[in-house]
């Protein structure tokens, strides 16, 4: 009972087709390459930050099929056949900021800004699933994203503000 050899990739470089921010991209990488490495080092999508590499900070949060994930704990091969969205894919193609991004700027939901893309992506996943979160739900959803500068209070405000704006935009 031999398994199909076709199923086995690597350990050397293999071609991978990924769908990132609604674009198909081809990369060549070893199976051990994480999605984070591919985004940053192969595709120069450096908005997704590398901080702890161990799933302990949230700075590399991206969406995989719309769900918030740590890119440092995701192998690139695992992302094949799934939709990857990064911070660069959140604003519209013409550069208009997403309402969350706008609210982060206006409410000052950031300081040094290094955790910010991850925070915004965590918040975007929340609002996609729960368009009118309570204050406690916002905090719970942001619990996997460390902000060392301590921007949390204004991050919470920004998420609540964006939720309100997106809601009223939908009603218009």
């Amino acid at each position, binding site marked *: 009972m031999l398994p199909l050899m076709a199923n086995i990739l690597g350990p050397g470089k293999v071609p991978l087709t990924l769908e990132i921010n609604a674009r198909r991209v081809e990369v060549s990488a070893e199976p051990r390459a994480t999605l984070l490495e591919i985004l940053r080092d192969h595709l120069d999508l450096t908005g997704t930050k590398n*901080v702890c590499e161990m799933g302990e*900070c949230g700075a590399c949060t991206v969406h995989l099929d719309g769900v918030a994930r740590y890119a440092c704990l995701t192998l690139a091969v695992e992302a094949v056949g799934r939709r990857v969205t990064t*911070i660069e894919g959140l604003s519209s193609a013409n550069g208009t900021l997403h309402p969350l991004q706008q609210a982060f700027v206006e409410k000052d939901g950031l*300081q040094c800004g290094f955790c910010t893309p991850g925070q915004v992506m965590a918040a975007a996943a929340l609002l996609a699933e729960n368009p009118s979160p309570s204050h406690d739900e916002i905090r719970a959803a942001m619990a996997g994203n460390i902000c060392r500068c301590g921007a949390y209070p204004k991050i919470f405000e920004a998420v609540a503000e964006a939720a309100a704006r997106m809601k009223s935009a939908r009603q218009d």
Partner: protein
Amino acid sequence: MAKKTKLKLGFPGHFKQVAVSLPAGDPVPWEFDADLKVVGKRVPRVDGPDKVSGKARYTFDLRLPGMLHAAVLRCPHPHARLRRIDTSKAKAHPEVRAVLVMEEKEYRFAGAEVAAVAATTLAAARQALGLIEVQYEKLPFVTDPDLARRPGAPKVRTEGNVEVSLETRRGSVETAFREADAVVELTIRTPVALHTCLEGHGSLARWEGDLLTVWDSTQAVFDVRDSLARALKHPPENVRIIKDHAGGGFGSKLQMWSQTPIAARLAKLAGAPVRLLLSRHEDFLCTGNRHSSVQTLKLGASRDGTFKAISWRAYGTGGIEGGAETSRAVDGLYRFPNLEVHEENVYTHAGPACPMRAPGHVQGVVALEAAIDTLSEKLGLDPLEVRLKNDPSEIRKAELSVGAERIGWSRRGPSGSNPGARKRGLGVAGTTWDGSGLPGPEVEVSIGAGGEVTATCGTQDIGTGTRTILAQVVAEELGISAAEVTVRLGDSYFPYSILSGGSLTAASVTPAARAAAAKARASLLRFASKELGDKLEDLECSDHQIRVRGSNRSLSWEHMAQDTPSGRLSFKAERQGNFAGFEPAAAGCQFAEVEVDTDTGEVRVVKVVAVHDSGRILNPLLWESQVNGGVIQGISFALLEQRVIDHRYGTVLNADMETYKVLGALEVPEIEIIPFPVAAGFNNTQVIGIGEPAIIPTAAAVANAVANALGVRIGELPITPDRVLGALESHAKGRR
């Protein structure tokens, strides 16, 4: 020539005329209630859109064509000497382009650099490290400061492990203690803490002939330039340091660390740009920390709570670096007629300390404020009343009253009086910090041929909003909006500035920006007056033009810039020395309410009220962010953070962000921020920094609130469940 005049300084109800000597040529300070259009407004961060969209490039995000990746071989032993090293196999690795062995052959902490490799990929560089053959001679070590103080302990420095760092005496503490009605003594311990800036330490170095450019994650481009030039024996004018955005610093990026010269050397050897980014683990071992402290304070007062004397004996360890003082805040916070300070640095075989947000103050205030609460308890006095009685600052006394009202201080019961398992408590603490700024920084304001305004300065924005406040100050002076000013910073080829730390930046840089913008304005007016033939006093500067009041005649800046040979008008000004201020330092206080669960030992901070003076608040939105940040880091220090070393092996056990715990979203309490604006003096924008003041009192207030809740003092930070339960248990035993 300096201009002698009087300024109205202070705050409502406490204004006074203060004689000051204003620097020649410097703009007259804005009045306390000046009607400003841009300064003092909630202007969103100018670099916000780039940061929220992932466009902002930090040092860690930069790549250059042909760039190599570097990795560092680190000594695993806390103390060792190099016996033998063979790098030939690493050099033979097909992807390796350069190998460097450090000059230093004795390693004094686990994590010290031994050798470095540059290769075409990071994986190859790391793999090549494994090919380096090293033999160490292990040497005796000591990482526990209590053991390091003992005679016969393994030596960290030839001069011995203990260094008296501060020794002060005033009056006679012995007599005063004898005469005091109440004396208390207590010992407070604080741990080694790690800065944990999310962007770690990294450098990207490139040589073009003799010109070395390094993109460095730093808080101090000029200091790194000078240190690097010295390290490489290279002329400083041929070294350029660039830092556009920085992912935090908190003091850990004020000095050059080894990754910078390593990257530069490898780049030279390899003949290609080299990027060296430390991993989180390396960052935690090697690039600074907040020194620990063991502080024994003795405090005496008369029956009415007037302090008579304080004795402050402390030691702490900053690993292989010194600088463990904790008592610096003592005189700024309270009046002590008799005082005795004895402080020691204890050297240990552990990673070096460096300044961390309000170094020494954070630790010292925890001990000082604990002693005051303990003393108040003994005297049966309200600790707030005792503070008001001994506080030398009019500002802080007013702040204490405001804050007490907001937290509901009158609810505070006697310590430990709360029934039930979940106990509430209130605590308070003060801060003093001189953030009035330094002379030296230069800002250039230019108007280009398109009329665009640019402010250029080699300062850094590490997340505090320097870019934004510079834009605001220049915009204010020129009558435009902040968005119309482009700020360029973070480059040692720009006009000089000081490091970004110590709450110095706003107060050191914005006065120079204002002076340069004022020069620009005056010059535009003069030029227009000549050109238009109108009197200066009939002209006004706004909207990118000089206009003649009451007419529709005007001259655009654009036109004036185009009229110069370079097509660009540029004006530079330097920050002058400080003049007199209302009080010597910024004053503030914080109140904390906590809930302690005596079944589980969990401590939850319910609310913090933060009342702070920082002179003129240039931008309340960003200022609040600074205060939030200080409070949150303060709570994190009080309740969570501590580096753990297994002293048997000298190994750091928690060099990661799972076991070195910093505060997350669910631990954030309600934070009520009360700005306390003061006409402070000192400089032409009358701003005082807020970065450090905001963190100084938090941990102290939280610790005092916990003591109030429990009726038991937890003598060691962080206040974790094990310590709470342990203290309750020994307290219960003591009573039995």
